[in-house]
C-alpha cells in the first residue's frame, strides 16, 4: 500500500509529465513548421492573416490599403524622356501637362 504523501507526489509527477507532453507536442508542431515552411513564413505574418480587429490598425500601415486619392486615380505619367522632337502623343497631351507638375 502506498502512503498518501508518496501517492500525491506520484500524482504530481504524472501531471508534470502531462504538462511536458503538451509542451512537447506544441514544440514539435512548431519545429516541424519552421523546418518545412522556413523562418520567414513562420515568424512574419502576412498582412491581414489571422488578425481581424474591427478597429483600423494604424500601427504599421502595412496591413491596410488606404482609399485611393483623386490624384492617384489619374495615372501618373512616365518620366519625360528628353527627345529632340516631341512625338504626336506628347504633343496632343501638352495642354494637360499642368496637372502633372
Amino acid at each position, binding site marked *: 500500500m502506498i502512503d*498518501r*504523501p508518496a*501517492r*500525491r*507526489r506520484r*500524482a*504530481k509527477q504524472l*501531471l508534470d509529465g*502531462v*504538462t511536458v507532453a*503538451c*509542451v512537447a*507536442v*506544441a514544440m514539435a*508542431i*512548431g519545429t*516541424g*513548421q519552421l523546418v518545412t*515552411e522556413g523562418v520567414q*513564413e*513562420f*515568424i512574419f*505574418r502576412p498582412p*491581414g*492573416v*489571422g*488578425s*481581424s*480587429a*474591427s*478597429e483600423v*490598425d*494604424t*500601427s*504599421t500601415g502595412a496591413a491596410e490599403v488606404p482609399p485611393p486619392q483623386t490624384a492617384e486615380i489619374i495615372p501618373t505619367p512616365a518620366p519625360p524622356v528628353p527627345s529632340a522632337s516631341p512625338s504626336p502623343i506628347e504633343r496632343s497631351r501638352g495642354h494637360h501637362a499642368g496637372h502633372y507638375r
Partner: protein
Amino acid sequence: MIGNQAHAYTTSLPEDSAGHHDLGELGVWFFRALLLVPFVLMAPEVMSAILGRPDGVANVSASVADVLGTSTFLIFIMMLAVTPVRTITGWRWHLILRRDYGIAMFFTAATDITLAATTTGDTFPGGVLTRVGGHTFLLAGTLSTLLLVPLVITANRPAQQWLGRHWKSVQRLTYVVWGTVLIHLFLLFGLTTIFLFALAVSAPLALMRIPPVRRWWDSARRAGRHRALRAVATAVLVAVFAAGYVPLVQELAAKGSAAFAQQPVLD
C-alpha cells in the same frame, strides 16, 4: 482555475441568509448561462458547414477566430477576475465560477482550434498542422490550449484530494497560460487594439494578485480600515479593467452577431 485550495470549489455561505444564498445561486447560473453565448453565436455557421451549404466552411473560417478566440479570452479574464473580486468584496458565492469558467475556457479554445484546423485552409494553405502551428501566433495559441489540458484534468474535487498540496502548484500553470495568451495576442495585433485591451484587463487582475497587495486589502477589508482609499482604488481598478473589457465585448458583439446572421465580417 487557480485559487485557495481550501475553498476552491465551494459555494457555501456559512454566515449568509437564505435570501443572499438564493441571489448568489441566481448569479452563478446567470454567469454560467453566459458561457453558452459563443457556441450559440457560432451554431448557425457550423450547422451550415455541416449541411454542406455554399459558403458554410468559408463563413466558419472567417468567424472562428473572431468569435471563439475573443470568447476564450473573455472567459479566461472572467475566470481570473474571480479571486480579485473576492479580495475586494469578500464575496464567496461566485468562487465556483472559477472552475466553471476554466473548464468552459478549455472547451471554447478546443472548439476554436478544432474549427480552425478544419476550416481555415483558405487563409493558411497547407495541412492541419500548418493551420494550428504554421505561424508563431498560431503556435502560441495552440500551446495555450494544450497547457489548459492539465488544468482542466485537475479542475475537480477528486483531483484536488489526489494531488493534495501539489494541486495548487499544478493550478499555477494558469499564469503560464496567461503569458502565452498575451504573447499570442501580441504576435497577432502588435502594440495595438486587442493586445492593449488585453493588457488593460490584465493589469488590475495581476496587481490584485501581488501577495502584499492582496494581504493588505484582505486585512483592511476584514478590519474595516481604509474604506475611502479602498473605494478609490477599486474605482481606478474597475475603470482600467473596463477600458479593456468593454471594447473586447463590443468586438465579440459585432463579430458574433455577424456570425450568427451568417454574414461574417471580412476585413
